């Protein structure tokens, strides 16, 4: 059951979206997220939908793969929709007991649901079409200007890529410890929430100890291989812009301009 957790899930393919420079994809995702909170009305909605559909189609990632990501936020989605539905003031359409549904509420609930699910769908394209390594490389390079103000950009991206590498190892370890504790009579499944949370302690303590030990070993191995921070480091796979990346930037700029114009005019 614990193996179902997927973080940094990559869907291998050779689509144009996969081959784009990760910096372009990061920029694109950022623009897209901004546009989700900028668009207004049905025309804006149509533009955003068209943009998302085009990218999904180009990425060649099956749509059902992305919808899986929505399940994780189903609860949040439901709560947001409820709040919007019942708590927006206005002319009531239906009213049951103390709860009333207004037209404005219906509208804002609808748009909120669309915004949230588009947010998840759009950003999942980024993680599905970019390997974790490319992603951290892209982040390191696009955030480089922030080094001037003392943000440890290289270190953070190194931490992220190491974390990604150790997720499966730690999951396996959790599984092992869980089985070892089950074999000795531990009970993770029954009882109320507090009881179950307490049952996690004998799982977490050994896991933490082992993670610290691994971190210590890894630090030593990195030092032994001359790791000395980001200064003077070269790259095996340096990021280089190609023609298609320029085109992609233009398209992103065009899309964003379109959304803004729609907002201004409508």
């Amino acid at each position: 059951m614990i193996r179902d957790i997927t973080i940094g899930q990559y869907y291998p393919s050779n689509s144009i979206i996969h081959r784009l420079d990760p910096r372009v994809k990061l920029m694109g995702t950022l623009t897209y997220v901004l546009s989700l909170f900028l668009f207004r009305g049905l025309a804006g909605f149509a533009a955003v939908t068209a943009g998302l559909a085009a990218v999904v189609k180009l990425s060649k990632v099956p749509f059902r793969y992305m919808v899986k990501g929505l399940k994780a936020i189903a609860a949040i989605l439901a709560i947001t929709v409820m709040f919007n539905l019942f708590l927006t003031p206005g002319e009531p359409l239906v009213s049951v007991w103390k709860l009333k549904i207004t037209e404005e509420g219906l509208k804002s609930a609808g748009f909120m649901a669309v915004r949230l699910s588009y947010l998840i769908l759009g950003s999942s394209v980024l993680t599905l079409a970019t390997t974790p390594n490319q992603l951290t490389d892209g982040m390191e390079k696009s955030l480089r200007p922030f080094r001037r103000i003392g943000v440890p950009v290289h270190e953070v991206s190194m931490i992220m890529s190491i974390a990604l590498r150790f997720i499966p190892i730690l999951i396996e370890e959790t599984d092992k410890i869980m089985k070892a504790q089950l074999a000795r009579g531990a009970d993770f499944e029954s009882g109320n929430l507090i009881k179950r949370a307490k049952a996690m302690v004998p799982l977490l303590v050994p896991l933490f100890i082992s993670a610290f030990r691994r971190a210590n070993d890894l630090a030593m191995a990195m030092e032994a291989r001359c790791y000395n921070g980001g200064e003077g480091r070269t790259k095996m796979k340096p990021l280089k812009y190609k023609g298609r990346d320029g085109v992609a930037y233009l398209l992103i700029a065009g899309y964003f301009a379109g959304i803004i114009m729609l907002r201004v005019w409508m």
Partner: protein
Amino acid sequence: MNFIEARKLVHEYFRRDEEGNVEGITTALDQVDLGIKPGEFVAVLGHNGSGKSTLAKHLNVLLRASGGTLWVDGKDTLDENYLWDIRQNTGMVFQNPDNQIIAGVVEEDVAFGPENIGIPTDEIWERVERSLKSVGMLQYRGHSPNKLSGGQKQRVAIAGVMAMEPKCIVLDEPTAMLDPSGRKEVLDAVEALNREKGVTVILITHYMEEVTGADKVYVMDHGRVVMQGTPRQIFSRVEELKSYRLDVPQVTLLAHGLKKAGLDIPAGILTRQELSEVLCRLYGEEGKNPEDTLTG
């Protein structure tokens, strides 16, 4: 000139109580003298807590001496200026294969060392290919390390060290967490590097079977070097080895037992082949395959 030269090397660990006051001192290395020539295959044997891992960490300057001197490639390890130079020239492979692989793709992990020392991109690709080939892992270059076996992971770790083109490679119990077939894979790769590329190898282990091919063996106990010599010289002193809690290989033990029982067998038998030849000579069964005599 010796590649590694240690004179009266001492390392002390301080045990501290909760306030940071020194509670006691453990001497992990006690007056260790070493002399290792370039291109040698040297094994360091010792039981748990004998100080052999501490010694390994000194060779890569992960630890510094509390006393005495250690020169690696003619450079004093206490001199701060030589730190990265020494680390580049004496690569280190650790016990746990999972805890020393940094990247999520085999070839990117091998590139980690060269990246750190600022090798240009084109040359990194060449080095990665060469070192993966030298350990026979080239076909796995695009794989995730998580999907490899223990022996394969350890070979990737060796390739990662080789990509920095060191003159010497120190392996700190590289086979302790592997199954027998993985153990053989790793040892074969290490022996090939020593033979074909002339890399100085220092293998730290507590499996005696692994040291029979070495040029020189050091035996450590309680932080001191207690025996040194060729494998044959070392293995002929069975009783002494046992006193250091080391398991002598089965064949050597059998030969030793037979000798004690009065048979005319030379000391320090290392392989089954050797023992069966000696036995055949004793009983005059010429023409018969010596292997059959022993197994049949």
